[in-house]
């Protein structure tokens, strides 16, 4: 196993922005990226604590810890909504914000002000949402199916809808920014197919966001009106139609499932290639499969409604649900081929990426099982479904987020994270994750329904295993949190390019200066062309440029006034 590369001797840490800059309005995409991540992590902890309470309740078959069924309902509703709208989506927005302009060699996003505005919509949305918990919380799960969400849930449901509305607007504004940035601000020499795969993934995500989120906005508007203005669009007792909500909601939410995992797939393509020193296998197919996922994702929504749909309509949606496995399969096989024969470095980032590969395949295959009509009708609303989407959203998205943190934290802070504790974190998370969510398949297949606090006593053994693993999983989160904080103060100096990567975000100091690059960086024409002589020459020239001596010579750390205009690059 090759060791992690060590920064060149004498490299000084680049200056970091002060803490106060993260707490106020800033239009710097790097500050905004960190603001997104910090906000998301805050909500991750809250959402995780709620999950612990849910598992605490489910330790015994009886309704005990949460007191009432309604209290339990609001626990898992808060958990799901926070994790989806306040953790995974903003966290990926944070990565996108920090990394994409750097990968494009750009000074900032296309609309810096809009970028800041989009972020600052989120904290009020989150606060509003949390306040809802104290005024008669939402109890409908994150799907907010009427009539429950219209007729019975408390005022918290209204606040729930308003806060999701705000978060949705934030996400649309962010997506507009990403699309324009990626379309217009690529540097000279970077065509579409020289673009890093993470940028491709963010582009696909942004396409999903601009096309799907408006439907959520429309649906939520009607839901809010039903709750506060006396209309009855979703109330069958007054001529409304609950299926209207289901259609509109899933037309947003199924694509939203992809917007929660496609950026993670982008992170995976980066990490697997960089940490195994191999070009991404089938680069074009990986890039285009992200777009394919984004588009096919719009044709499958009704597979969430097999039990409420007329039978003839089920079949086409079953077929599209199978078709969408193809682009995912392309990615999986490409990643495996990327690893094949590579010089694999088992860094924490790499471990989490391999973890993603294994767990996401399980989540994907159970997804196919649920996409088959007869299986779905048997497993509908059981713990099998809970297991499936946690394999996708935790084993997929969250593992990818962890991989991304281990991979890019040195760029963001200028300091390396501790690899030993990274591996410990991986080992505990991987095992605890598996034993938390895999047994749910079994409980579900035997008929344990989801979203109920009481269950048949024969499921208790499985549930105790699940709960204990879940507690371990919850605690394991604090290992990475501690590691991240530790790295800021005590981590080894990372230098500009600790992983010897070719993409542009590594061709500047860590953290990058204001406006990212001192000069105009030229991208290497194959972002993953590892192992070629040209790539080695490019990396060597870049390292030469980044050594303390070169920095001093060019006056880049001495300030502009005394700069000597000698050429610095090795030409």
């Amino acid at each position, binding site marked *: 196993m090759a060791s992690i590369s060590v920064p060149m001797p004498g490299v000084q840490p680049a200056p970091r922005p002060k803490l106060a800059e993260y707490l106020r309005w800033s239009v710097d995409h790097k500050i905004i990226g960190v603001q997104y991540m910090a906000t998301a992590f805050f909500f991750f902890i809250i959402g995780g604590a709620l999950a612990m309470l849910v598992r605490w309740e489910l330790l015994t078959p009886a309704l005990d810890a949460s007191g009432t069924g309604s209290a339990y309902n609001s626990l898992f509703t808060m958990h799901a909504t926070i994790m989806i709208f306040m953790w995974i989506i903003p966290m990926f927005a944070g990565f996108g914000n920090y990394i994409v302009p750097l990968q494009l060699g750009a000074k900032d996003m296309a609309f810096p002000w809009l970028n800041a505005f989009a972020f600052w919509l989120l904290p009020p949305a989150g606060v509003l949402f949390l306040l809802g918990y104290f005024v008669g919380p939402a109890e409908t799960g994150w799907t907010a199916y009427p009539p429950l969400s219209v007729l019975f849930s408390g005022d918290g449901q209204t606040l729930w809808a308003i806060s999701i509305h705000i978060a949705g607007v934030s996400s649309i504004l962010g997506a507009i920014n990403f699309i324009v940035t990626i379309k217009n601000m690529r540097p000279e020499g970077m065509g579409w197919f020289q673009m890093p795969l993470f940028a491709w993934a963010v582009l696909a995500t942004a396409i999903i966001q601009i096309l799907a989120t408006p439907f959520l906005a429309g649906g939520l508007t009607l839901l809010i009106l039903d709750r506060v203005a006396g209309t009855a669009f979703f109330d069958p007792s007054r001529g409304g139609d609950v299926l209207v909500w289901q259609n509109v909601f899933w037309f947003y939410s199924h694509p939203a499932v992809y917007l929660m995992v496609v950026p993670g797939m982008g992170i995976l393509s980066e990490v697997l290639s960089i940490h195994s020193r191999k070009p991404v296998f089938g680069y074009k197919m990986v890039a285009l499969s992200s777009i394919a996922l984004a588009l096919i994702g719009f044709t499958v929504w009704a597979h969430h409604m097999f039990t409420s749909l007329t039978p003839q309509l089920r079949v086409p949606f079953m077929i599209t649900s199978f078709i969408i496995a193809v682009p995912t399969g392309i990615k999986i096989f490409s990643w495996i081929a990327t690893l094949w024969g590579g010089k694999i470095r088992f860094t924490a980032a790499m471990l989490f990426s391999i973890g993603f590969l294994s767990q996401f395949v399980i989540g994907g295959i159970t997804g196919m099982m649920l996409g088959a009509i007869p299986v779905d009708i048997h497993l509908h609303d059981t713990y099998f479904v809970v297991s499936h989407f946690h394999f996708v959203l935790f084993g997929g998205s969250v593992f990818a987020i962890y991989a991304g943190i281990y991979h890019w934290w040195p760029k963001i802070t200028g300091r390396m994270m501790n690899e030993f504790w990274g591996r410990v974190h991986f080992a505990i998370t991987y095992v605890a994750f598996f034993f938390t969510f895999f047994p749910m398949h079994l409980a579900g297949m035997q008929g344990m329904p989801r979203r109920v606090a009481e269950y048949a006593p024969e499921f208790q053994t499985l549930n105790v295993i699940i709960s204990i693993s879940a507690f371990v999983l919850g605690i394991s989160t604090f290992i990475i949190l501690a590691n991240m904080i530790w790295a800021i103060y005590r981590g080894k100096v990372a230098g500009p390019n600790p992983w010897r990567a070719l993409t542009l975000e590594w061709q500047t100091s860590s953290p990058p200066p204001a406006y990212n690059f001192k000069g105009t960086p030229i991208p290497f024409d194959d972002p993953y062309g590892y192992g070629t002589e040209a790539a080695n020459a*490019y990396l060597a020239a870049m390292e030469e440029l980044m050594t303390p001596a070169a920095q001093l010579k060019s006056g880049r750390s001495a300030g502009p006034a005394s700069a000597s205009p000698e050429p610095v690059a090795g030409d």
Partner: protein
Amino acid sequence: MQHNTPYRDMWYNETVDEDREAAIRLKNRRSGMAVFQASWILVFVCLCVVNLQLRSSSPAWPPEGVERLDAALPTLATLSLLASAVLVRRGMRALVRDSLGGFLLQWRTAIGLGVLFVVVMAFEWMSVAPVPEMRVVLANGEEMITGITQYNAIFRVMTAFHAVHALVIGLYLVRVLRTAAHGGLTGDTWSAEAGAKLWYFVVIAWLLIYVVLYWL
């Protein structure tokens, strides 16, 4: 590709090309506007889809006892809105040609026509009061409340949602107009272009709603 010179220029000989920066800024704004239009119009599409689905799940549309909406006045309003879009476009063209007088005249007329549209639709909105629910006794003796309110309720939501957009964007047009009248738009054609494009958005959104509400 010069692999051995990863940086084209260093910061100390990098000059900021103002024209190039301005060109990129304009390109970004145009792309951003297009993406916004493509995205946000889908909220109106969503409302139209909801309308169609409510209609398909209702036994009759409009339900028995409810009058079909009269298309005469709204058609007039639609024509006025279309005319305003044409004028907004011509005004923007005039501004590009440096003809401030032409711009002001066309935009004032356009905004007047827009106001006419909003007033007519507000009148329509108020005249369609939510019809009280109707109780129907079914053959088996059960009582059922028919979906009689849906027809009018979805009409009111769609038109009001549209009117909010027309008002906000209309106010933006007024602001651009006032700035221009004070000579504040010299060299800036983007404000007028943005206003025009947003107003097209209002028109397209209305045409969707108009067809679904009055002609389907």
